[in-house]
């Protein structure tokens, strides 16, 4: 009886919560964009025999079978004619029927023809979600909260270190000599993994909803999404030693972090800014407004002359920030979603997910034009959209849709 009442209580709780958090209306631009996509999308073509089984009423079924029979008869007559006999009909050439719908024609050819790049290794991994490098090794965080090391000498995956199962994708990973650090937003926890002991050695409660994590050797930084803060942890004591308020409290606050050009950089979607923090004083150096069409919820690439941040909603963009003026100087448009970029030979590269069409591609963005100027495809089934890191003289790309990490030669990124 108690259990029954408890079930009812839980049901009422869930119903009230769902009523509260369910959006009441889809944003108009989202619906408009979806409908616009249908305008250029062809419907599947049904052949007569498919229509025959679609209807359920007997009369329609009979009509369907009649149609199918007619179609079969037509096919037979044409085939007979093709063999030189029959009714003297001359069959005209016809396209081979296909079971798949005819794709809509592309309005214009792509401006850049992707070139090939051949992986030197393909490492199978179960649901890899994020990549990090400590400079020599590559570390994987899986969707189930496992941390695994790829040994660059053997291209083999090491034993999994569990940080606790999870079912959502709001975890971050960062690695350096101080260890491998993983955030887990569900339990508001920062895990410290000792790569030598091969286990979680410290579990630190941090903030409300920790997401992005960044280790810089002397400090570990954590973006606490709903608190609007970035936390600084001292790896010597595993204690939070500073809290930097970078935006308002609430959802979609500070997301991902990067280090470069003497600053810590964090993207904050809910106030549409990127904030630059001085790591010596923990003071905010700049709050940089980001154009509304490029929500700053992606990850960073930092070159000596530019800071780039990917977007994650709407038409995919990469925002170009001039670090000398702390102003946005350009927006690059991608033909699919991308996440953590890598800097290769001074230029930002992103792995672009062009689904549903395959393959995805690795895109280089030119700072001078804020446009993609080179694309590489590491195989016909490459999904794209995953993290890229540079380590051990190679580029490593998460091809999570295919449950694998690809290792690519650095030399292949500077063709010609």
């Amino acid at each position, binding site marked *: 009886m108690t259990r029954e009442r408890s079930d009812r209580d*839980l*049901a009422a*709780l*869930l*119903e009230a*919560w*769902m009523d*509260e*958090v*369910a*959006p*009441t209306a*889809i944003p108009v631009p*989202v*619906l408009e964009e*979806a409908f616009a*996509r249908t305008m250029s*999308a062809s*419907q*599947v073509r049904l052949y007569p025999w*498919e229509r025959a089984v*679609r209807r*359920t009423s007997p009369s329609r079924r009979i009509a369907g079978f009649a149609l199918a029979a007619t179609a079969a008869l037509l096919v037979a007559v044409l085939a007979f004619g093709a063999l030189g006999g029959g009714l003297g009909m001359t069959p005209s050439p016809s396209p081979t029927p296909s079971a798949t*719908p005819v794709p809509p024609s592309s309005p214009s050819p792509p401006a850049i023809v992707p070139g090939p790049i051949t992986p030197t290794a393909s490492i199978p991994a179960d*649901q890899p979600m*994020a990549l990090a490098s400590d400079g020599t090794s590559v570390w994987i965080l899986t*969707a189930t909260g496992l941390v695994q090391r790829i040994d660059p000498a053997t291209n083999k995956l090491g034993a999994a270190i569990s940080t606790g199962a999870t*079912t*959502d*994708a*709001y*975890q*971050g990973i960062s690695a350096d000599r101080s260890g491998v650090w993983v955030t887990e937003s*569900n339990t508001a926890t920062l895990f410290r993994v000792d790569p030598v002991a091969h*286990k979680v050695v*410290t*579990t*630190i*409660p941090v903030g*409300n*909803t920790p997401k992005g994590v960044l280790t810089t050797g002397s400090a570990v930084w954590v973006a606490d999404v709903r608190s609007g803060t970035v936390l600084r942890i001292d790896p010597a004591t*595993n*204690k939070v030693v500073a809290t930097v308020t970078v935006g308002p409290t*609430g*959802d*979609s606050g500070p*997301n991902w972090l990067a280090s470069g050009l003497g600053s810590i950089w964090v993207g904050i979607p*809910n106030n549409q800014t990127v904030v630059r923090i001085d790591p010596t004083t923990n003071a905010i150096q700049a709050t940089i407004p980001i154009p509304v069409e490029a*929500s700053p*919820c992606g*990850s960073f690439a930092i070159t000596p002359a530019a800071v780039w941040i990917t977007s*994650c*909603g709407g038409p995919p963009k990469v925002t170009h920030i001039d670090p000398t003026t702390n102003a946005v100087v350009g927006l690059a448009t991608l033909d699919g979603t*991308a*996440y953590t970029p890598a800097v290769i030979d001074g230029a930002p590269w992103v792995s672009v*997910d062009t689904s549903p069409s395959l393959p995805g591609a690795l895109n280089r963005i030119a700072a001078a034009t804020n446009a993609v100027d080179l694309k590489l495809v590491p195989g016909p089934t490459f999904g794209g*959209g*995953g993290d890229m890191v540079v380590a051990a003289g190679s580029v490593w790309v998460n091809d*999570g*849709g295919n449950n694998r990490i690809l290792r690519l030669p650095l030399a292949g990124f500077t063709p010609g």
Partner: protein
Amino acid sequence: MSVEEVERAMRGDHDAFGALMGASANRLYALASLILRDTDRAQDATQEAIVRAWRELPRLRDPERFEAWLRRMVVNACYDEGRRTRRRAEVSLLHLAERQVVDPTVRFAESERIDHAFRRLPLEQRTTLVLQHQFGMSHVEIAETLGLPVGTVKSRIRYGTAAMRAALEADDRVGSQPAGEKTA
């Protein structure tokens, strides 16, 4: 939403399809938002489901089952979205602030607690719970929508409910303990 409208859309009538989407899109988006708990992903999934629905509409066997078929499109798009490995922005529930009553702090904390517990569920369990508690569907209706045996639906609801209860109780226990560092 009429059968005639569905049949017209099945024959390639964009206006009819637009009218159908106008009537359904808000509910589809709410479904995707609750399953995925991420605004951007929910928008992507809803868009993808709408485009797929348009393409596949001629294959709809029974126009009277259009709504259930559409919901299934959204659920499948959510599953596809959930399988993607890129990380996305934190879920936006900004409208929550507009609906706060009595004690906003307590209300927000309670909502957060449920949200955290719900996010721990696999997408399949979230889906059945949403269809049951938000869409008021019976086990049979959920089974028809998802194309699953009724027994599977029942077990997903049972496990999902049990997991929610366990997570909330665990939160209660954590909340009653003093915070501190734990070292392995």
